[in-house]
């Protein structure tokens, strides 16, 4: 059984980056897949990776993460430049992020407007 937990943007928007990451990792460590409204910033993602590494043990192997970008591809250059810094620090409300425990999700593929999750079972079937 797979449990998907949806986290709306409003549930994390007032949290510090540290608390945000703590909350997301706690859900993943409970063997649930997080569907987060919005995207994490690059600084937050590296912090998430760092915290994940610190928590890896015999049971928890880490995470798989992928996001879907729902922003306009034809944004003007000045908008894109402004976005870079804001996204680095704060992330973005637009989009969807999937974070799951590596023990359940073996691979996530983005293609380009859909996300495919491969579990251990589906990978074995794919190989056959």
């Amino acid at each position, binding site marked *: 059984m797979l449990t998907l937990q949806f986290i709306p943007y409003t549930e994390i928007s007032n949290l*510090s980056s540290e608390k945000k990451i703590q909350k997301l990792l706690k859900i993943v460590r409970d063997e649930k897949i997080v569907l987060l409204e919005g995207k994490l910033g*690059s600084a937050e993602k*590296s912090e998430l*990776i*760092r915290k994940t590494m610190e928590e890896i043990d015999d049971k928890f*192997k*880490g995470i798989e*993460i992928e996001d879907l970008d729902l922003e306009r591809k034809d944004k003007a250059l000045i908008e894109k430049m402004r976005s870079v810094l804001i996204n*680095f*620090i704060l992330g973005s409300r637009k989009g969807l992020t999937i974070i799951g425990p590596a023990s359940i999700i073996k691979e996530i593929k983005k293609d380009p407007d859909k996300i495919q999750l491969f579990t251990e079972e589906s990978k074995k079937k794919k190989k056959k």
Partner: protein
Amino acid sequence: MGLFHNFLKKFLKSFFKKKGEVKLGLYGPPNGGKTTLANKISMDWLGEKVGKVSGIAHETREIQIKEQITIKSKGKELTFNLVDTPGIATKIDYEDFLKAGLKEKEAKTRAKEATKGVVDAIKWLDDMDTVVIVLDATKDPYSQVNITIIGNLEARKIPVLIVANKVDLKKADVKKVQAAFPQYDVIGISAKYGKNIDNFYESLFKITNK
């Protein structure tokens, strides 16, 4: 605000950096060929290697530095401290090392060291002046690890060169890497066999504006 405060601190620190302390970091996912490239650069210009390589992921589990490498070409010189880093990953499973032939105790130790290595690599990213991202050109370049590293560097305006490594292999697809990161210079090389390495050195001069 913690992340913003750290970002501002590092941004200001860069203005007071001493001349000559240029740090060139090799970053990327595990097994992309970072240490192979580090060894190639170090052997070419210093006559000595930086670290050990193997086919098992996370061979490099500590930051390895070679200081004062000077590369020369067409009357130009570039001196830097070469920083070879552990591959960054979002997951590490000791069972993968068991499958690679390690014994259980060895595998668990390697996994523990690898997680620490990733933490160190992320920490050191803040201190790099220029970064070469080394990707395995036979693999999918659209990974969150690659995007995260590049996103961090882009925000801090750190010059980036992307290397699509392992072009000696049939499945290597340099065009796919170029398409994934169109805003960056991407150069296809074989660090193992030295293919296109001269163009790689020229690219280093280009991104550091030398």
